[in-house]
Every structure is written in C-alpha cells, then in structure tokens.
C-alpha cells in the first residue's frame, strides 16, 4: 500500500464585486492511496481583512488553499479520509441479502 496523497483544490470562490473581497471559498480534498480514493468537500467563510487585502486577480489557488487550511482542522479531515480509504480496503460493514445471492 502506497502512502496516501491528499490533494486540496479550490472549486469556487464567492466575492464582492465592488472590491474583490472573497467571503467564501469552496474546497475539495481528494485522498488517493494508489488503489482507493475518497473525497470531501465544503466551504469556509472569511472575515473581511482589515488591511492589505490581496486583489482578487492576484489570488492563486495556493494562497486560497492556505487560507482554507488555516481555518480547518486539516489533520482531522485527512485522518477521516484515511479512515474511509481503510474502510474501502478492509470493509467493516456490508449490506446484502443472503437469500438473493
């Protein structure tokens, strides 16, 4: 089993058109251990910065991912995704009807 790679991605940004203040980022996290995949997504809100707001056009995905990670419990999220991968590899639950095989 190879190490799990967690890939963070920004799916969308919501901003105020007047000054480019980004108040919401929608993010995704993909976990891939080479065999199994799992994912999570969500959005996070940002307070308006008091100063030095980066112009919207100058934002990069890396910058926004940094903002998102600052506000999230990254370790907890990635641990949860790892648990999902582990569950796929070694399922602890199943559904089915024994008489319908």
């Amino acid at each position: 089993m190879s190490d799990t790679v967690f890939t963070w991605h920004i799916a969308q940004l919501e901003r105020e058109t007047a000054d480019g203040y980004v108040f919401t980022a929608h993010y995704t996290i993909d976990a891939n251990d080479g065999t199994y995949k799992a994912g999570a997504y969500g959005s996070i809100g940002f307070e308006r910065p008091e100063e030095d707001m980066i112009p919207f056009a100058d934002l990069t995905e890396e910058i926004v991912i940094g903002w998102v990670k600052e506000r999230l419990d990254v370790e907890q999220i990635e641990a949860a995704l790892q648990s999902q991968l582990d569950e796929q590899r070694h399922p602890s639950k199943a559904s089915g009807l024994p008489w319908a095989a």
Partner: protein
Amino acid sequence: MADRKISDLTALTAPAAGDYLPIVDISEASAANKNKRITIEELLRGAPDGTAAAPSIGFESDPNTGIYRPGADQVAISTGGTARLFVDSAGNVGIGTTSPNQPLEVNGTIRGGSYQFSDSGTSVASYIGFSNSNGPTVEFWGSASANSGSLLIKTAGTERVRIDSSGRLLVGTSSSPGNGNEKVGISSSADGIWIDATGGGGTGIVIDRTAADGDLINFLQAGAQEGVISVSGTTVTYGGGHLARWSQLPNEQDPSDLLKGTVMSNLDEMCEWGEEDNEQLNKTKVSDIEGDLNVAGVFVSTSFSDDGPLDYFVAMTGDMIIRIAAGIPVHRGQLLMSAGDGTAKPQDDDIVRSKTIAKVTSNHVTCTYDDGSYCVPCVLMAC
C-alpha cells in the same frame, strides 16, 4: 426600648443588605437575651444546602419543591422532590442531567415555536448536531459564510447535501457544478443518480417542458455540448449522436486495438456476461468481406465500465465517423460498403442496397491513423 408589636414597626420597603430584622428568641429565659437580630444579607446567605427532596429555599405548602445546593459551586432546582435543573461550577446548565458538558444540555425533548442560533462573528457557522458515543452522526449546519446563508447536512462529520443561498440543492459539492442556473447540482466520482422504479406502474423519469418547445437533456463532455434531446411540438429529437449496442469479439479477444470507425460484421455467437440473460446482442468481428451483407456497424469505443475491456460499442444508425482505407477517395453524398479489411469504400452506384452501410455527409477528414486510413463523417444506415 419599650416593647412594641411587630406590626407597629416601620416596614422596610427597600431593605439594604445591612438592615436588621428583629428576632424574638422565646427560648431564652431572660428578657435581655430574647431580643436578637440578623441582617438581611445574613438571612439570605445563610441557607443550608438542602436536597432535591428537601430544598433549602422552598415553600411551606410544597416542601419538596425549591432551590438547593447539590455541591460546591452548584445550584439546582427540584420539583416534587426530583432534581430538574442544574447549574454546575463551570456555568453549564443541565436539564434532566446533573453533569452538563455544554453550556446547555438537555436530556429529553426540546419543544418550542422557533429557535435561533447565532454568533457574533460574520463567518461562524452554527449547527444542530446528533451524535452518539462514536461521534457525530448527523449535523445540520447554518451558513459558514459572511454574506450568504446555506443549509448543510453532514453525516459522520462530512458534508453530503447543501441548499445554498439561491435555493439550489447540491449533492456532493458545495458550489454549482454547472452554469449556476441549475436548481439541483450533483458531483460524484461514482454513480450520480440511481432510480429504482419499484412499482408496477409509473415512470422512472418524467421530463415535461410545460411552457415551450426546447431541450430536455443536454449531453456534455468536459463542458462542451455533444448532444441533446429536445421536444418540438409532437416530435422528440435526439441530436448529435447515433444508436449503438454492446458487442464482443470472438474468443475473448481484447478489442483495445480496434480503431474508431472500423467496419464490424455480425457473428452468430452471442455475447456473454456470466449468467446474465442476453437475448439479442451477438458478437462481431472486423468485416473481412468486400460488400459484406452482415455489417453490424462501426466500432466506437471499448467499455467505460469496470467490468472489463472486452465489451465495446458498435454504432448502428445515426451520426458517426467511418474509416476509409488510405488512398481511397470519398465524397459527400456517396454510399459506402465494406471494403473487406475493416474500412469502407464507395459503392459502384447510388442505390441503397443490403450491402450499404453509410452515406458520407462531409468531405472533412476527422482523423488519420498511423496506417494511413482516415475517417470521415457519415450517417450509418440500417446496420
């Protein structure tokens, strides 16, 4: 001071903590010792701890109802001799529990007309959660955004469903996966929608354009429209595609090397999918007879499913491309037949015959393969 009746004393209408209340202790023998006093502060602060069954601050007509002190830095209210509400040393309030772990913990059902959850920040989320000893099970979250409100539903700590500020229902994504105009958006790396039509009647999916003619379903690939199903009056149009069917090569050969547009020929042998019933899908092979009367269609692609690469699509009727051998010119309007090597070639006449497989619709060369064969757009005909 001469003896005075209590009723003659001046009533304290706004008693201060240090004001005295007179007490006549009739147990004392001497008159000098009968007169005692206590300040209002001392009286109010001097209550014993009490218990739930006998609260220290209670009512003469209902002695098992009142306020008592269950422990250090704690206060509680009991009714009918049973503890009901606790405030612990941390300020947590418990109703129906003596050990609240949150500012308010209720062991039982909460009922009310409306509840509001809010926070002083503009980007702080509020939620109602359900959990057990394994952790959170279901959570309903309010907006985590400064300028918009969304309702999120999480299970096992992961967001599953969202209704965003525009009323859009989102599954598997927190933002619109489409053009932003859709009312329902789904993003999934696995199956998107699965409908079990369990009843004997009814219809799996119904799409009704109630106001005007137009598109019913758009088919896109990487954001680009590739096909459409539309309705106009009493006619439904299936645009931008062809009809195809599953097939397999004989002897479990791998079709991965087949070129798109290759002419395929019918075989008697039927496709096999384990014990799955198969009434009509026969295997095919690359057409190897010039003017082949048993052309099944042209090869499109191998299976997209995980079930294996042995299955492939054979286009039978409709818009498609067809493969022409290198050096064989074709022109728009020409009828084509099998050339006997997997490619097509022009018929000698312009009469539709049993061997006719397609009509060239454009002189445009769609693609050219390494062996020099090339593809042109065509309409497949009754393969």
